[in-house]
C-alpha cells in the first residue's frame, strides 16, 4: 500500500519520527510561549539555554560521572537558576519598554553564551551516550524505533501536559494567566508579581534545558545546537499564536510531523517548510492558529 507514492511503511515511520522532533519543538516553544505571554519578551536566548542544558548534562557525566537521570533533574535546575539571574540582572530593566529591546538583549545574551561555550569546548561536538535503561530499539513492524526516542516523545508529552495543567488548572496558573493580561492589577491584589515573573523566566529556561538534556543522547552536544534550532522554534511559536500555550504545543508536534513528511517528498525543502507554513498561516490568520485576535 502506498500513500502519495510512498510505501505506507515509510510513511508511518516518518510520521513517528516527525513526532519525535515535534516533541522538541513543543517543549521549546512551550517555554517561549510562557515567557512571551507573561514577560512580553521574545526570548532569543532560548536556544542558548537549551544548549547550556545539554552541556550541563554532558559536563556532569564527563567530569562527575552523574548519570542521565540525575542530569535530567539537575541540569534544568542549574539553567533555571541561570534564567533567574538573567531576569534579575538584565530583563528586569526592560519591562515597560518596547518588546523589541527584549528581543535584542536576549539576542546578545545568546551570542555571549554561545561564544563562551565555543571557546571552552570547540564546535565539533561532544557525544552523550543513551542511558542504559533505554538502550536498544523496538520493532514496530513498520520501523525500528529506538526506545530512547519513544521515551523522548512520552517525556515531552508529560512535561507539556504537566505545564499545561499547572497553568490552566492551578492557582499559580491563574496568577500567570491573569498576569499576562494585566500584571499590574494582579500585583495590586497582593501577588508578588516580580517574583512570579522571575520564576516564570527561570521555569521557561529550565524547560529549555530539559529539552537540551533530552536531546543530548540523540545529537552531538555542540555550542551551536541551539542557534540552529531557535529560528525554527520561533516560527513554531508564531504559527501557533504568540503566547498561546496549547497552541505552541500542538503546533510544535504538528510541524514536526509536516517536516518529517517533507523529508520524504522533497528532502531539500525540509529545513524551509516551516517558514513556508508560517508565511501561509500569517497571511490567512495574522494572529497565528491559536492566537487571540489583536
Amino acid at each position: 500500500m502506498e500513500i502519495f507514492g510512498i510505501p505506507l511503511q515509510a510513511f508511518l515511520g516518518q510520521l513517528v519520527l516527525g513526532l519525535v522532533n515535534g516533541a522538541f519543538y513543543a517543549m521549546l516553544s512551550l517555554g517561549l510561549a510562557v515567557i512571551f505571554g507573561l514577560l512580553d519578551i521574545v526570548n532569543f536566548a532560548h536556544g542558548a539555554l537549551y544548549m547550556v542544558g545539554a552541556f550541563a548534562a554532558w559536563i556532569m557525566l564527563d567530569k562527575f560521572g552523574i548519570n542521565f537521570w540525575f542530569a535530567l533533574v539537575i541540569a534544568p535546575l542549574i539553567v533555571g537558576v541561570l534564567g533567574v539571574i538573567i531576569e534579575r540582572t538584565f530583563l528586569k530593566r526592560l519591562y515597560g519598554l518596547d518588546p523589541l529591546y527584549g528581543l535584542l538583549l536576549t539576542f546578545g545574551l545568546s551570542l555571549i553564551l554561545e561564544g563562551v561555550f565555543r571557546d571552552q569546548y570547540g564546535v565539533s561536538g561532544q557525544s552523550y551516550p543513551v542511558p542504559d535503561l533505554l538502550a536498544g530499539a523496538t520493532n514496530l513492524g513498520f520501523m525500528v524505533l529506538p526506545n530512547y526516542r519513544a521515551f523522548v516523545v512520552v517525556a515531552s508529552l508529560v512535561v507539556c501536559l504537566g505545564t499545561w495543567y499547572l497553568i490552566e488548572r492551578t492557582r499559580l496558573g491563574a496568577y500567570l494567566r491573569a498576569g499576562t493580561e494585566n500584571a499590574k492589577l494582579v500585583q495590586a491584589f497582593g501577588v508578588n508579581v516580580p517574583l512570579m515573573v522571575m520564576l516564570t523566566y527561570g521555569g521557561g529556561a529550565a524547560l529549555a534545558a530539559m529539552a537540551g538534556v533530552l536531546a543530548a543522547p540523540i545529537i552531538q552536544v555542540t555550542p551551536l545546537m541551539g542557534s540552529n534550532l531557535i529560528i525554527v522554534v520561533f516560527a513554531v511559536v508564531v504559527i501557533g499564536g504568540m503566547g498561546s500555550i496549547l497552541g505552541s504545543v500542538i503546533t510544535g508536534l504538528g510541524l514536526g510531523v509536516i517536516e518529517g513528511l517533507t523529508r520524504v517528498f522533497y528532502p531539500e525543502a525540509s529545513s524551509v517548510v516551516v517558514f513556508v507554513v508560517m508565511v501561509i498561516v500569517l497571511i490567512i490568520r495574522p494572529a497565528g492558529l491559536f492566537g487571540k485576535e489583536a
Partner: protein
Amino acid sequence: QSGPVKIGMITDMSSLYADIDGPAGAEMVKWAVQDFGGKVLGRPVEVLSADHQNKADVASSKAREWIDKENLAMLVGGTSSGTALAMAKVAAEKKRPFLVIGAGSARLTNEDCNPYTVHYAYDTVSLAKVAGSALVKAGNKSWYFLSADYAFGASLEADATTVVKANGGSVAGSVKHPLNASDFSSFLLQAQGSKAQILAMANAGGDFTNAMKAAKEFGITKTMKVAGLLVFINDVHSLGLSNTEGLQLADSWYWNQDDASRKFAKRFFEKYKRMPSSLQAADYSVTMNYLKAVQAAGTTDADKVMATLKGMKIDDFYNKGQIRASDNRMIHDMYLYEVKSQKDSTTPWDYYKLISKVPGEQAFTTPAESKCKMPK
C-alpha cells in the same frame, strides 16, 4: 629584499572544523618554521595566522589584505572547500603560492586550477577512489548515499558514484540532507528502505557525527555497512569506538603508521592532549617543504619558488611523492582504514587498522581525467 619572510595560515579557528585543523594547525606551521631554524635566506620567517570562521568572504578578504599590506610570501589554506576556492582566486590574482591542506574539493586542481595553487593533502576524488574501489571490490556492490546538500557533498557523492560504477557497483539511491541538520533519523530510515549494502556518508564534521550516531541508534549499522567518505580521527574520537566500530574510511595519514609519525604525534600529544589529524601533520610538512624550496631557489619570488617546489622530491613523515606539474596536485599514497572495535584498541587513540594502501597514481585524478587547463 630584506625584512622578514612572511607566511600566513588562514583556517577555521573557531567554527566547525577548528579541531581537525584550527589553532593547532597554525601552531604546526610555526613548529615547522622553528625546526627549520626560524630563518630562510638569512631573513627571519614570520608566521601570521587568522580565523576565517569558515566563511569564504572572510578568508578571501584576509588573504587579500595580507598580500596587499604585509607582502605575504606564501599562504597555507586550512579547512573547507569554499574558503580555499575563494583564497585560490586571490592567490591567482595576486600571484602568490597558495598551499591547500584542509580543503577537500578536487576542483582546486581540476576545473579551477591555477599556477599558484597546490593541493597538498587529500581531496574528494582520492577519498572516493580509495574508499569506493576497495569496498566495491570487497563485494559491496550496492550503495546508498547520504549527502550534505551543498557543493562539497554533491561533488563527493558524484566522485564516489563514478568510482562505484567504474568498479562494477551500483547506486541504489541517495538522499540529501541540509547542512548542519540536527536530525538524521528520517534520512536514515529512507536509506534503510533502500536495502543497499553500503551507506556512504558524503558529509563532514558535525553532520557526519550526528548521522553516525543516529545510524547506530536505529540499528542501521546491523543491516548496512557504513562508509564515511570524509572522516577525521577527531570525529572518531568524539563519537567513541562504540559508535564507529567497523567504519571504513580513507585518509592520507594516521599518527600510528610509522616511527616518524609516532614521534611527531607524541610531540603534538604533549602539547594538546590529543593526537594530530592528518591535516595537522600536513600543515607541518607543507611548511617545511616550502621553506626548503625557498632555500633551494634562493629567492621568495613566487614563480621561481613554485618551479623549485614542483621539481622537488618530497619525502617526510607525512608523505612521499611529488607535486604534479600539470595541475599542481601533490601525488602521494592514500590509505583505507577500518575503525577498531573497543577490545582491539589497546592504547588511547589506537583507533585505526590499515586495510590497504593505494598508490598516489591510482588515488588521485589521473591526467586523463583532469579538466585542468592551467591559465598562463
